[in-house]
Structures are given as C-alpha cells and as structure tokens.
C-alpha cells in the first residue's frame, strides 16, 4: 500500500506503508547507526519523533525483546529503505513489520532515504506527516503546526520504585530512562530507586541517596514546563550529592548550573560520534541521540566534528551529552559509570 511523507517545507516522498497503517505526525530526525535499530525504536528519547534510518537494510536480525531499552516504542513513526522480511539471528523472535504493528507505530519504506536525510541535513530537522493518501494542504498544515509539550511527563515513570538491591543507593530521576542506565548501575552494586521526573528535591533527599543519576529523555531541555526540574536539580546540586547526568539529564543539569542550551540543526543521532576528553586529549567513539546542545566554554568533552559541548564536570557532579550506557552503539565510555561510582563511594564513606 502506498504511503506518503509530507514535509512541512512542501516536499513529498511516496513509498510503501508497513507496520501500522495509520497517519502519523512528528519531527523527522535521522539516525545513522548501522546496527541497534531495536534500541533506537525503544529509546524513550525519540518520543513523538519520526525516525529515519540512513542504513537501508533494517530488521536484518529481527526482533529481540531482551535488547529493548524500554517496553514501548518511543517514536511515532519509522522510515526505512527496506524492512527485512526474512531476518536471521539466533535470538530473533519476529520481524520488524509486525513489531511496529503490535505497537501501533506507522512505518514508511521504499523511499529514497538518503535524499530525505540530505534534506534534513541541509534544512535542519522539520516536521513531517505520513499519510496513506496523497497529502493535501491540510496535511501540510498539520505538519507545520505540530508541536509537542510535556514530553518528559509522557515517558517518565509514575511511581517511585526500587529496582535493585546493592551497597550504593542511587536515585535515578527518570526523564525517559533507557534500561541500559539501570543495567550499568546494577553491575556496580547499586540499590536503584527510580523516581518520577517531578519528584521534589526534598523527597529525593529523604532517600539519603549516595548518588543521583539523571537520565536521558526527549524534548527541548529549555521548555517552560521543565523549569521545576531545573530548580530541583539546582537544589540537589547544592546538597553536595554526586550527580551524573546523561543526555537530557546533562542538559537539565547544565541549565540548573546557569548554562544555556541551543537547538542543533539536525542533531547527533548515531553510533559513530567522536568526542574528545579535554583533560587527556583522548578520543572516544560514542552513541548519541540529541537535538539540543549545551552552550559552554569549559567542556570536559567536546564533539570532534562540530566542537559542541559533550560533557561538563562540576567537581563532585558531572554530566555527558552522549550515552556511556551505549545500547545501541559503542561501549567505549562505560568507564564513566566507574568514575561516577568512585565519587559515589567517597560520598557514601562521608
């Protein structure tokens, strides 16, 4: 069945529908990872977006539930060149097409994905609307006017839960956390308390955490509805508890510390982003997924490609823009969790 992508700038791509056959509107972003499509789809940071995969063959190793980063698919729609109908992997438990169907996610395939990627690269991210009939003026209008708010609320947990036992008590502020973050902390002997995004600082303090983990998540960090979170983070910082922020967590902490953020033209989404550690000059390949960046002078990590801020170190607390928990992507910066734990253990010892 033919499906269309109407871009807010008036361009149309015609392809075939797969997954759930329904219309969908969202910001179109491209991801360049050649593996890791399951992690990408289940990453809550993509909430509400239309993901475009630059690698043309998607679904080769099928659907592997144990690799999911969350129980849901964050994105609203998925655009690939060719979804694999006959995947092959010893852990595979289905095909991408039915997986999208099951979650009610719209799919569009068979379009010139590279051409679309280049449009977004050149014009910046923009909204699009996938339709099942040739797009009308109304569709373009919908695409243009589309905007999301309260996206963190949509993906954060609703209640406080203790997800693991361990020596070090960590409060994980869930802005749409990937499972990888809890997995890394569990490996390091942590008692993890996962908290809703709007948990007040005083509530968090009551837990007497040895460390605070700020998760990844969707949306514009400087959105007005995030102001209370920023205030909470400032309060937590002032308490002197070690904080480790990842991605959106990094951005929100930066806002709390007086930095500003900006929207990137087309973001960094992929598994091949080089970042340089300022103190050592070492370059690491990282997994990234963000459309905004912190504006800062004394970055602890810098993106080698465009020089944007990839990390900040505040002494006891620190944060990175990229994903040291990987999934999908390189595991090269997993040591940052060790770095966090060093600070946590010092703090725990008093």
């Amino acid at each position, binding site marked *: 069945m033919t499906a269309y992508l109407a871009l807010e700038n008036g361009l149309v791509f015609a392809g075939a529908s797969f997954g759930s056959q329904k219309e969908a509107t969202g910001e179109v972003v491209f991801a360049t990872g*050649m593996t890791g499509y399951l992690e990408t789809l289940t990453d809550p940071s993509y909430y509400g977006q239309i993901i475009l995969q*630059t690698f*043309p063959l998607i679904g080769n*190793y099928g659907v592997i539930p144990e690799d999911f980063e969350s129980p849901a698919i964050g994105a609203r729609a998925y655009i690939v060149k060719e979804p694999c109908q006959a995947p092959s992997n010893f852990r595979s438990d289905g095909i991408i097409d039915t997986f999208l169907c099951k979650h009610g996610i719209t799919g569009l395939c068979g379009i010139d994905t590279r051409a679309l990627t280049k449009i977004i690269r050149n014009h910046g991210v923009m909204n699009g609307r996938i339709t099942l009939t040739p797009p009308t003026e109304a569709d373009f209008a919908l695409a243009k006017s589309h905007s999301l708010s309260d996206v963190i609320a949509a993906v954060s947990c609703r209640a406080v839960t203790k997800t693991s036992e361990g020596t070090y008590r960590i409060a994980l502020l869930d802005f749409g956390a990937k499972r990888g973050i809890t997995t890394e902390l569990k490996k390091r002997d942590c008692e993890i308390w996962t908290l809703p995004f709007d948990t007040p600082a005083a509530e968090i303090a009551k837990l007497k955490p040895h460390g605070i983990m700020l998760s990844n998540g969707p949306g514009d960090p400087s959105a007005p509805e995030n102001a209370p979170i920023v205030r909470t983070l400032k309060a937590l910082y002032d308490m002197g508890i070690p904080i480790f922020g990842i991605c959106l967590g990094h951005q929100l902490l930066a806002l709390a510390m007086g930095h500003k953020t900006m929207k990137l033209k*087309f973001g960094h989404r992929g598994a*091949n982003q*080089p970042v340089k550690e300022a103190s050592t*000059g070492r370059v690491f390949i990282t997994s990234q997924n963000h459309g905004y960046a912190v504006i800062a002078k004394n970055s602890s990590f810098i993106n080698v490609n465009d020089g944007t801020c990839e990390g900040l170190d505040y002494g006891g607390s620190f944060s990175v823009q990229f994903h040291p928990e990987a999934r*999908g992507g390189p595991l090269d910066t997993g040591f940052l969790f060790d770095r966090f734990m060093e600070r946590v253990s010092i703090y725990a010892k008093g």
Partner: protein
Amino acid sequence: MPRDKAIKKVLVIGSGPIVIGQAAEFDYAGTQACRVLREDGIKIVLVNSNPATIMTDKNIADSIYIEPLTLTTIKRIIEKERPDSILSGLGGQTGLTLCMQLAHEGFLEKNGVRLLGSSPEAIDKSEDRQIFKETMMSIGQPVIPSVIANDVQTAVDFANETGYPIIVRPAFTLGGSGGGIAKDEAALRDIAENGLALSPISQILAEKSIAGWKEIEFEVMRDRAGNAIIVCSMENFDPVGVHTGDSIVIAPTVTLADKEYQMLRSASLAIIQALGVEGGCNCQLALHPHSFEYAVIEVNPRVSRSSALASKATGYPIAKVATKIAIGYTLDEIPNAVTGTTFAAFEPSLDYVAVKLPKWPFDKFVYAQKELGTQMKATGEVMAISDTFESAILKAVRGAELGLDGLDLPRLSDKTDAQICELLNTVTDQRLFVLYEAIKRGVSIDDLHIITKVDRWFLSGLYNIKAASVRRFPRLDGTAKQLIYKMVDTCGGEFEAQTPYFYSIENGTENEALPFIQRSNKPRIIVLGSGPIRIGQGIEFDYACVHCVWTLRSIGYEVIVINNNPETVSTDFDTADRLYFEPLCLDDVMSIVDIEKPVGVIASFGGGTAIKLANKLHERGVKIIGTSADSIDICENRERFDSLLEQLGIKRPRGFSVTTEAEALSAAERLGFPVLMRPSYVLGGQNMIIAFSAEDIREYMKIILRQRQENPVLIDKYLEGREIEVDAICDGTDVLIPGIMEHIERTGIHSGDSIAVYPAANINAEMTASIFTITEKICKALDTRGLINIQYVLFDGEVYVIEVNPRASRTVPYISKVTGVPMCELATKVSLGESLRGLGYSSGIAKIPPYVAVKVPVFSFEKLAGLDTHLGPEMKSTGEVLGIGRNLDEALYKGLVAAGYKIELPCSSKGAGVFLTVRDSDKAEIGDIAAKFAQLGFSLYATRGTARLLESRGFSVTAVEKIYKCAENNTATLLESGKINYIISTSERGRDPAFDDVKIRRKACTLGIPCLTSIDTATALVSSLLSGYGEDNTELVDIAGLCN
C-alpha cells in the same frame, strides 16, 4: 600530536610481484602512503621489484629501486641512501617480514633507522602465534584451542586430545599457503608435513576446527595516543573454513544484532590496544551462530587486502591515515578527506552495502583443484555497492566477467537434483551458483543452511533474486529505467561530502552525480578500467589507466573512471574527477555515458575488459577515443586480420578457424603438427594449447566445447622460433617504438610467462629495421591513434606476426620506466589529436638506455594444487618482477632472484644437484645445459631416457626411476631427499595431474625447488649461475635518475 619533524627521509618497501594473496592492494596502499609523506615534505626512497606499480613512478617517490626484495638488497639500499626511517605496515606481508628481519638483526638500530608505525614488539605479538595466543589469554580474549608445532607428531598428539577436524596453518606464509583442514590422522600428517616445509620457520599451528561459525572482520585504526576506531565491519558469506580472501564478503555486518556487534567491536579494540599496533590493523573473529561464544582467529598488524576493501567500501582512506599516524599525527588531527570538514577520528557509517566477490583462475586452470579452504586461491576480486544485498551481488557477478548476467550458471542446468545436492557438500568457486540452482530446484533455505552453514539471511537474498527472476538490472528488460547515482561519503549523509565517488541504485529520486556534471565546465572523458585482477590481466592495466587519467586531467579534461576493482589506484576517489564504482558491462557503462555525456570514452588502457566494450559502445553511438572500434575489430576478427596482413604483404603462421572436432582434426592434418589452438577472442592465452597429436586435439575440443564457446576455435601452424614483442605509439603519421623486447623462451610459451629482455639482444640491425617497417605498416593500416602491442616470431630468418593488440599491453609500465618514454601520456595525447612530433618525439626506435632490463614472470603455483607448472601457450603467471643491470647477466640475475629463484652455487660444505627429465625434442640441447651444471659442480640426476642420453655424452649421471615403477627409490623420494637444487622438466603432454611428469613438478612446487619447464629458461638460469653475480656485487640502480 603534530608530525615528528625528525623524519626527513623514509624508505618504503613495496610488496613485490602480484601473487595469490598479495595483489594490487599494496600498490594502492603504498602509493597513498608516499603521497602523504610527500605532502609533508618527506623524501621517499622506494624499493619494489614490481615495475607495474604506480608507487615506483617518478612523481611518487624520490629515489626508486626496482630491485629484488631480499634482505641483502634492502640493507645495501639503506647503506646507500641512509634513510632515517622505514615504513613497515604498507608493503604487505613481504614488506613487513623484511622490516622485522632488519629490526631483529639490529640492523636498523645500528644504522640509525627508525621503524615507523607499529613497534617490532607489537608486530611480534601479532605475528608470532605463541606470543599472540598468550597476549590474547592475558586480556581474556578467547582463542581457538590450538598448538604450535615444529613437528608432525605434536600436531597429531593435539588432535588426539581435541578431536578432528583440525586446521593447519603454517607460520609466516602468504594467503595461508600450505594450510588445510584435516579430517583424520592420515590427512593431518600429510598437511602438517607440507605446512612445515613451506613455513620459513618450520612452524605450523594446528587448531580445533570451528568450521561453520560466522566469520567477522573488523578494520581497526589506532594512533600512538591510544585512540582507536573501527573503520569497517565485514561479514563473510561463507562461514569459517573458507579463507576470507576466497569468500564473498559484505560490509557492514548484517546478521549481528547490536549486542553481538558491540561485543566483537569491543574485542577488536581491546586486542589492538593490547598489541599496541599503531596504524591500520585487521582483526578476524569467529562467532558461534547460536550463542555469544566467539574466538579471535588472527590479527594482521598492517594494511591488508581487507583494508583496501574497507577503504573502498567506506571511503575512509586507511593507508593514508595509517601513514599519517606513522609520522606522528593522531586521529583527531587528521582531516577526513571525504567530508573535508570532519576528522579521521570517527567511524564511517554506511548507507548502502558493499559486496566483494573473489575472482578465481579456474576458468583457465581446468585441472587445478577448485575446492576452497584455508588456502586462498583467488587472484583478484570485484566489489559492488548498492542499497540491497540482492542488487549488489548481481552487480558483482556481472562485473566479475564470468560471462554471466545473473546467478544462473548454464552448466548446472543439466545436472540432476541429486547431483546439485552433492555439489552443495563441497565449497568451490561455484558455490554461489550451486546455492542458487538448489533454490531454483526448490531446496528449502533451512536445508541449505544446515548443509552449507551459510547464514539464512544470505540464502534469503538469493531466494529473493529467484523470486523476482532478477537477471540483470531493469534497463535490459525493456523498462528503460535510468539508474541513479548515490555518493559514498563515509557518514551516511550526515555531512556534506566533497568526494565524487558514486554507485548506482535502481530506485531513488535524487541523482547525486547530476550537480557535479552540471557544475562541470570542462570537456569530459570516461576512462574504462580493467576490472578484477586475473591471470592475463594484472596490475599493469591499472597503471596504464591511472596514467591516462592523470594526463587527461593535466591537459584540461574532466575525467570519469569506471571500474570495480577495490584493490587499485584507479578506484582511489581522488585519482579521477569522478569515480563510478560500477561493473564494466555495456549497460552499466551506457547508463553513465547517458548522464555524463562525455566527448568520448577511452577503452585502450583497461586491457581486454575495456577494449571488448569499444565496439559495442561505438555501435551505440559513443565516440571511442584513439584507435577506432573498427580497427580493434580487425585485430580480433580472424578473417579481417588475415586479409589485412595479406594486403600488406606481411607473413603470419598459416591457420584456420574451426567449430567442431572433425574440422579441427582435418585442419591440423593440412597444417601439420604441432599446431596452436585457441578460441578466438582470447585473454591471456585462455584455453590455449599446442597440440602435438590428434589425441591432444580431441581432449582440447572436448574441454572447449564444454564451455559453450560461441566463437570459433583458431588453429594455427606452430612455428618454433624467437619471439619478439613491440610496444609502439602511433599518431596516424609517425610511429614511435619505445622498445623492442626479446623473449628468452622460444614461441610456445605465452608472452606473459616468458622472460622478456629489453633491449632485444639477438636481433641485428637489418632485423630491427624490418620489424620497424612491419610495425609501421600495421600501425598505419589500422590508423592507430595511441598504443599498440605486436608480437612477432622470427622463424627461418623471416618475421611473422603472431598477434596485434591495438591497446596498452602488460609491458607498458616496464618499458616506460626503463626507457623514460612516458608511453601512456604520449598515447593519451596522441589519441586526442596531438602529434608525436609536437610532443618532441619522432618516428623510429627510442634511444636505448645504458641498462638491460629483464622481466621475469612470477607464479602462484604453490597455492593451486593440481595445476601443472609446465609453461605453455596458456598463461599461468600472476605477476612479474624486473631486473635492471649493466648487462644481460646482471639483469637476469637480479630478475631471477627477485622472482624468488635461489641462485646458489654448490660449496664445499654442501653439495648440490640438478635433476633433468626432458622430452625427446629437447634432448638435443640438454647436453649443453648439463655440461654447465656439471662444470659448476652440480651432481646430475635424470630419468632413464635423459640419463641414457647424458651418459652417452660422457656425463656422470645418476638415473632415477619413475614414481609408479619403484616405491622406495624414485624421482619423488629423490626430491624429498634434499639433494636437488634445480629441476629441469619438460614434457610434450602435461595438464593432467595423473601424469608422472606433472607429479614431479607439483612435488617440486611443494618443496620449493625451482623447476624449469623450458630449455631456454634453464639455459638462462645456468648462465646466471655462471655469471658470478651475487647479491653483494650488483649495481643498485635508482631509476629516478636513469632517464633524465
């Protein structure tokens, strides 16, 4: 870290002749390396025995030595040139081994030469199997259970513990030569013995077989600060068990979930960190298909065939970056040449797949064993890029020049289902086609997977091809769909790219080549490349293409290259203005012509691959630059060629064209035996034989007709005489002959397999004049515009023409380098209308330099079991070396040494022997050779017949029984005894591995004993032995200063 300013003069060692396992990729790597060094103002001393390389050009290096790649020679060059550093990782295994020997001996330290790139310790850790294993174990990386054995029993004991099958890998051999899989003790003993003999350190690795696991490769890059990245991941279509050089390979990996991928990626990085490699490195890993269990297979601490593939598959120039690292830069300081705005410290992201398909020589070597295993057999490869595996593999097959436009192999169609299933059990060069045939016959993907262990993902791809009945791309089905072109940009479209490197896809909306074409304000010319390296068409043609491209660019054209060989310099994205990585097939080329609208196409530099397209392109209205398509046709069309020669009054051996066995027999009768037989439209003497009897004709016609030969078979009177070869350039008026070469061997041995001497030593002024006159006549009659290669035979004082090729030949690089005549440049300019006179040349034979240059062919016989090493009209060599000297003896000595012959005289401590067994027609001449060997102190051994003859001439000779006549004391046991240094074995019949003579020659090959199969080669060798030249007393010739 910025570059190390202490580096001012670097020695770069090339990889020598093209052999199986070491092909053009090292010219590509070395050339890139030299350009990087030059950019940084570093002086380059280059040594390579292979003249057909770009790296040995004057505009690439400062001092150039085409000398044997031996330790002694390299040491002498270092002492003469005094470089401060040496680059180790870019000259293949040959270059690396030499560097390591120099380092271990303390020679580098003593002479103040630094080894750039990885340290000797790092290289030892990767190359020495024991240290490697220990290193892997120390960092917790799993290795395959194995034992290092210096004798057969150790391997057998290990096998008894772990069980069969066992894989044997000899240490320090190229392309895994001498290895194999043993299913039982008898086989193990056999393979282990062979492997020990072939290993220069008499060491083998016996390991537990993990056949059937997925084979995954990572190309890794690390700088001295410890930054490390993955350039490319690759997955083999054929699971572990088939050498990666013989496997179809796809980049990136396709069946690995991110979890498996990251596990292996992290392992590769951990390995390169532990080894401390600086530069490019290749990690081969095996992954159990149904678990996370994996094992490290091996690591190459250098640029390799896989890195050339990875470079072309991703656009990331591995050799260039590795060289920058070697001179001190770190990854974050090296710009990404493709984007121009980002840096080398990143991992390429592909938005397509690249598929490599090996090119095997079995179309020529009908008797060679076609089973694929741990020993590489492919001579070359093609790569195809597309957005699906299905279209990429079809493109690859089309571009491999197999005569196929899909996966249907006609010869499988008359096999029964049972036969097809049987064929699935062995891996041969036909595996892909057998799988496809099985799918067509309804064998399920699951069954195929169980039998072959090929991943279901690939099998599904083949199934999709069948389901769609895709034979070739849609244009040919009449839908006239224009292909569109996408760019290889290293980053999946994330950044704007500067490099015009394209591949086609069938479905898409944006043609990325168009803006480049629209921007172009110069006339455009397409240069056709030469496709995969195979016997008969080697690196020489890439050399010619690259020079043509450079010339065109220098005179103001915008140049487009079409080629599909990832190993080459021509497919480096900055060689031409635009590169289309596409098959050299008519429709693929036409599709590019349609959008590029060039002023013309140049087909005369890309060997047979390119030239055979000339006529077809011409018919489609495309302008062929240079000699006309019609003239090309005259040279290839038997009747037209004969009538042209007749018209010109030029002689050629009498002959006929035939289509059946009966016609062939009657033609032979009329001509008289022996006769030369070949199919029309040949390349490298494909399927060419000399028939001495009716029986030979029957055998030949059976083979040729089996291959569904559409063109007639040519049958000619065979004239045994001196063979002369001429390369000439003609502008329509004047004819310049840069050089006349003479072959050491008489006619009957393919020119590519003959030792060629320049300048010709045995032709007088009158003969020279006559050759010039005939050459001139032919050039003018064909209205030649550019290069032409003519082969002559001198018979009974007369000049006969054997063959005319109106294009660049394989001797062009060699003659260009020795004479200083820039042949490709002149030919290119002349083909565009300039005159030789205008370019400062005139009619005649170019000035002869004060040196003699001898081209010696190099074979890969040890890799091709079952193949008779006897030379004949069918070409067998894979590469060549050049010897340059003040006189013929010196040049010949160097050439033979460079080609790997041991030129050793008997000494008091160690006796030496020569074994002679010759056909009747050679018996008259063997006496002289025997006399010279005897004079040098060699003991003579011979088979009965030859021995009788030598005894009758008064020689003392030991007679030896044939293999089948006596089990204990025969020719085979003699060779094994180590008493024999040289073998001279000629026979009228060969080919069939069952013949005794063939067995002897195979044995010699296995044992590494030089075996000469022509009286003329033997004469040359013995005169070289007599000449008194040694590696210490030859002149080292810097050819950069030779022709100024």
